[in-house]
């Protein structure tokens, strides 16, 4: 198929005509050709009309990435990834949005339905015109959720933006932020996760295509939960989101990230970076429900989820709280962390990770105690079923100056069946005499008598497992915002279907 003339122009403008690749345009998609090199980085940057400093920033990241090696220390195994055999840019073709849900691809709607996404939100996600408008005052009693939907690489719908703008809150795609608020992006991008932080973060820095940007001004309490639905749709498309959240002094924000993906045969690479910055007395609550395609029962297909998430508590008394429910992906490599710089700052990590069938998860957190009287809490619940392998890997590091620092860590593992594994790898580096670090760990099984007890009361075996697992995860699930908690409970049960009996 012929390339679209404007894209050729765009490429020509940055590569001085040396760009030798054609373009595939298929079913409303524009792909950059497969493979990764400096030209592709330039192509992405040009496509997004980025300023020169950002292109330089990407190129530096790419140069660093080339010198780095994929980490081998996680307790996961997978065939080698050919980074030249993937697409690094795919975007839906620009067109006028559908007028109503009737005009939306029924296949897409069926996926939403299975995921239980409400109609109103389906319309927003599908980009129906006018669907994202703020309801009349007093119209809806329920707390609205602002959705910034990411389809493949480009954010195609943003809602409630005007209402947020009234408070001075910026909530938009990171591409838009680069255009509209370059000074903020330039100041904070890479300030928590530098380009060369790790192999996957470097890759993301070079080729990130979209993600969310949030800025909460001084003293503002964000009036609604902010939500993003990530989705991977295109075949063989790497997905590299970049999210940046800045909470100025005394502000408060709760951000929800829900991830789901339709069924795919090929392994798909996903390497996101999330950076959070909290100033004095600011609070950021970041919740994730991750339900990407885990692969089939034999371990074929499924998403490789290699994510770098880190928050900096820069200000005194600031607080960053990570809550994650990880049920999907064939491989999860993820350590949402907190740098507790400000005195009296607080870091929290609440995690549920399920591995069923052939899923592998190596996940945990890092808590860096730098400021005085900094506190951190880690609650990790790992559930292994089928042939699943589940590793908690965590680091609590206390610097000599962090007097009065405290950490409490609790790692509980639940095993279902006798083919799965649970592993706990806690690292503690304490260089401060007055710090207090506690670690508790348990490993248990769903006991036969628990299942029988539930079934005698009339519950099916699967309902019984769901109930017991939800009970096991209760301390984490209660940290989730209400709508998410219900969704997460359903997910836990769906994820474990077929794991007993």
């Amino acid at each position, binding site marked *: 198929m012929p390339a679209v003339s404007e894209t050729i122009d765009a490429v020509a403008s940055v590569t001085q005509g040396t760009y030798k690749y054609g373009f595939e345009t298929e079913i409303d998609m524009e792909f950059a050709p497969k493979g990764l090199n400096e030209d592709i980085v330039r192509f992405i940057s040009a496509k997004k009309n980025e300023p020169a400093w950002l292109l330089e920033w990407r190129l530096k990241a790419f140069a660093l990435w080339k010198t780095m090696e994929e980490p081998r220390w996680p307790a996961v195994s997978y065939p080698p990834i050919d980074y030249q055999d993937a697409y690094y840019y795919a975007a839906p073709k620009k067109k006028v949005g559908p007028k109503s849900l009737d005009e939306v691809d029924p296949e897409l709607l069926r996926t939403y339905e299975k995921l239980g996404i409400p109609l109103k939100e389906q319309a927003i996600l599908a980009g129906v015109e006018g669907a994202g408008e703020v309801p009349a005052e007093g119209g809806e009693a329920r707390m609205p959720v602002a959705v910034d939907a990411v389809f493949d690489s480009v954010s195609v719908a943003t809602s409630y933006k005007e209402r947020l703008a009234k408070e001075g809150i910026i909530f938009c795609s990171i591409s838009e932020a680069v255009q509209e608020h370059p000074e903020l992006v330039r100041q904070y991008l890479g300030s928590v996760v530098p380009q060369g932080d790790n192999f996957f973060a470097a890759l993301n820095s070079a080729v990130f295509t979209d993600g969310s940007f949030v800025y909460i001004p001084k003293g503002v309490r964000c009036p609604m939960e902010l939500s993003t639905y990530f989705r991977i749709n295109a075949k063989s498309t790497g997905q590299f989101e970049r999210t940046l959240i800045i909470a100025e002094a005394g502000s408060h924000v709760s951000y929800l990230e829900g991830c789901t993906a339709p069924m795919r045969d090929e392994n798909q690479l996903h390497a996101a970076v999330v950076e959070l910055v909290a100033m004095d007395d600011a609070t950021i609550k970041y919740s994730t429900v991750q339900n990407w395609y885990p692969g089939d029962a034999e371990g074929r297909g499924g998403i490789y989820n290699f994510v770098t998430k880190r928050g900096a508590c820069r200000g005194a008394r600031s607080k960053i709280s990570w809550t994650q429910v990880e049920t999907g992906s064939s491989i999860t490599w993820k350590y949402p962390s907190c740098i507790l710089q400000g005195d009296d700052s607080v870091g929290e990590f609440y995690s549920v990770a399920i591995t069923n069938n052939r899923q592998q998860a190596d996940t945990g957190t890092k808590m860096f105690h730098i400021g005085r009287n900094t506190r951190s809490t880690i609650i990790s619940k790992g559930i292994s079923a089928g042939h699943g392998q589940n590793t908690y890997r965590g680091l609590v590091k206390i610097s000599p100056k962090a007097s009065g620092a405290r950490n409490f860590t609790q790692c509980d593992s639940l095993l279902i069946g006798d083919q799965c594994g649970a592993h706990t790898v806690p690292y503690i580096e304490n260089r401060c005499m007055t710090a207090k670090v506690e670690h508790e760990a348990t490993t248990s099984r769903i006991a036969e008598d628990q299942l029988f007890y*539930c079934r005698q009361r009339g519950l099916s*075996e699967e309902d019984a497992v769901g109930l017991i697992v939800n*009970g096991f995860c209760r301390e984490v699930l209660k940290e989730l915002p209400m709508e998410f908690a219900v969704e997460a409970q359903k997910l836990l049960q769906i994820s474990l279907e077929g794991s007993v009996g």
Partner: protein
Amino acid sequence: MLKIEGLTAEIDGKEILKGIDLEVPQGEVHAIMGPNGSGKSTLSYVLAGREGYEITGGTASFNGHDLLAMEPEERAATGLFLAFQYPVELPGVGNANFLRTALNAQRRSKGEPELDAMQFLKTARARMKELSMPEDMLKRGVNVGFSGGEKKRNEVLQMALLQPRVAILDETDSGLDIDALKIVADGVNAMRGPDFSAVVITHYQRLLDYIVPDRVHVLMGGRIVQTGGPELAKQLEASGYGSVQAA
């Protein structure tokens, strides 16, 4: 009617039930007494469908349903309830949530509408008041941190909510003080009626002062060796199981 004929069962190759014959007509309460190791608990587990027991012969049916062919939850749906000797703890699972999930699972299987949280709480509170239970038992994890007496009362509360048609009480009296024993007995007695039958398994006669059975059976060595009226329990209390063996 609960009807058991020639039931034999073994665990790990060891025969525990050696041919049980028992009929409990609807509306009647029968007691099964016997020394330790006679097969009392095995009988209750086999009837409720616990894994690990091999049924080697005989039949067991309830109102014409072949119990042995059903999954445990299907047996529960036909109205069979087992009050456990050692109620199981479910950490993190709220008692109210558990009870409502169980109740609604059974209502679903009967084609009845499910109860929402408010309707359930109203029903549950009313039953708890009848059983003199503190309301906070609904909020706590299922049996977690419950005293022995609280666990047994929780079993009776579940029975009162689920309204079974046949209840098997497996040594529900063990470990209970006299006040708790009365509460448990009141709970069972309140259920008595033409559509409810019960099998009360006990080691001691004491419980039968409060739940007066229609018939008493003596289970020894995997068989029912003697059957009589309530007076049989008193007789056993006086002379012990040794006298039966001799007979």
